[in-house]
């Protein structure tokens, strides 16, 4: 593959890239969906993912339930959280200036982050699930079960949501609202309802990412800072509001981060994706994909 590097090292890196890319894809898909429909730049997105990590940790520590098995509960739960955040906060700023949106969502970010610190301190926690120790190995290539589950879940969820957006009545109403809210209103669509559903779906996706991440990462409140920046890198690269673009960009950035950390310096792993973003913004400011390929 790459001269001087054994194929097993390359494959190990590739699989790590698929894992991290899956997390970025989920987080990015949620953030871009919310932006594409409501035009809201949601700075609270990554802290909602981290909240789902704490939720997984809490349930695991009390009941011993695997974060993965929690998915069918945490998606609807965080859907509801997103829905309520829209009804009680975002609704009042969605038509307002960018700075009011920043204030509201960044404010929410900080409230949740410090709420977490108050409840759990800023110590690091780990879900010591037995799943972590299940590792498939062949020819020097290792894939842990949590990584494999993360990748498969991401594929399943992103296809399911794409199918939902393409074929159902609500999905079509969401796309119509994203394209032209006034035209949607004139066709009997309550845009505020669609906005709250979208924030619910976006938050649900962030929660899935959080659950999956909790199986492999240690948990602390400040993970949200890096993920906030990286989520924006993903959705700008994918084209703001472009669902497929965000998923694609999520994998590109996940790969880039893993390979950078190995071949250059772990310290540079976030800098290189940012550099790529700047290059993309110069040569293709609308993002990787053409407009036609938008959901």
């Amino acid at each position: 593959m790459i001269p001087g590097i054994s194929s097993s090292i390359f494959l190990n890196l590739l699989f790590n890239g698929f894992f991290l890319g899956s997390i970025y894809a989920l987080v990015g898909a949620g953030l871009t969906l919310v932006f594409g429909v409501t035009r809201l730049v949601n700075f609270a997105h990554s802290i909602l993912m981290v909240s789902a990590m704490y939720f997984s940790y809490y349930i695991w520590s009390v009941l011993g339930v695997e974060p993965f098995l929690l998915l069918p509960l945490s998606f609807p739960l965080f859907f509801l959280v997103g829905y309520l955040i829209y009804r009680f906060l975002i609704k009042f700023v969605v038509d307002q200036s960018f700075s009011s949106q920043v204030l509201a969502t960044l404010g929410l970010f900080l409230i949740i982050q410090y709420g977490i610190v108050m409840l759990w301190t800023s110590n690091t926690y780990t879900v010591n699930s037995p799943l972590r120790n299940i590792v498939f190995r062949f020819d020097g290539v290792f894939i842990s079960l949590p990584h494999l589950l993360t990748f498969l879940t991401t594929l399943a969820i992103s296809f399911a949501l794409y199918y939902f957006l393409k074929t159902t009545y609500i999905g079509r109403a969401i796309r119509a609202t994203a394209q032209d809210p006034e035209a949607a209103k004139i066709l009997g669509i309550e845009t505020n309802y669609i906005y709250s559903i979208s924030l619910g779906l976006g938050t649900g996706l962030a929660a899935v990412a959080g659950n999956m991440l909790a199986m492999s990462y240690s948990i602390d409140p400040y993970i949200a800072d890096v993920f906030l920046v990286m989520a924006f890198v993903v959705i700008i690269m994918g084209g703001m509001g472009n669902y497929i673009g965000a998923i694609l960009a999520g994998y590109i950035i996940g790969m880039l981060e893993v390979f950078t950390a190995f071949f250059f310096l772990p310290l540079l792993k976030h800098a290189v994706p940012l550099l790529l973003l700047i290059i993309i913004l110069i040569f293709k400011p609308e993002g990787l994909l053409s407009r036609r390929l938008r959901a």
Partner: protein
Amino acid sequence: MLVLSNITKTFGGVVAVRNMSMEIEKGELVGLIGPNGSGKTTLLDVISGFYKPDSGLVKLDGAPLNRTPPFERAKHIGRTFQIPRIFSRMTVKENLMVVEMNEEKALQLLEMVQLSRLADEYASNLSGGQQKLLEFARTLMMNPKIVLMDEPFAGVSAPLIQRLSDVILQLNSEKKIAFLIVEHNLAALFKVCHRCVVMDQGSMIADGSPEDVSRNSQVIKAYMGE
């Protein structure tokens, strides 16, 4: 059926609509004309609920609409826009199915406006005139009692204007749908409407049959003065 009483709408210092009152009966075909900037589009936006009037009331079948949001009004009041607001990243058929997942009904309406051959085409590939027909078919998916149309004939080829006029007349006589049509192409408008309302600088200056209105000296002056 649709009653406007003393509607006034200002933007900052500009009075876009001044004390407009009018009534449209079930199955009536009304034209709304006036020079550029006379307040026609603003009046449609007040009826659709996009703008809240400074004062005055819109009523539909006796019920005041001032607290009814646009999406609720849309269940009875159809609307097309001066610049068509189609969903360009959806197919023609999908544009209609945003309203209801009824493919058969969508195809029937597309047939009526002669777009069925383009049903699976992306809406952005349609010509401006075809986009207006699509927008019209889409609002008919709502089964409206009245349709507000903003310059349906502008930028549309003569054969399409003919087709659109025929469809409007057919829906009006068969389904008793009322229309309020804003249009600058008076020749085409007068062929379809029963009655014509004229606005100038936000106020109504005439209301009558197309013949009366076109002979009205105040109307002639408003158009010449522009």
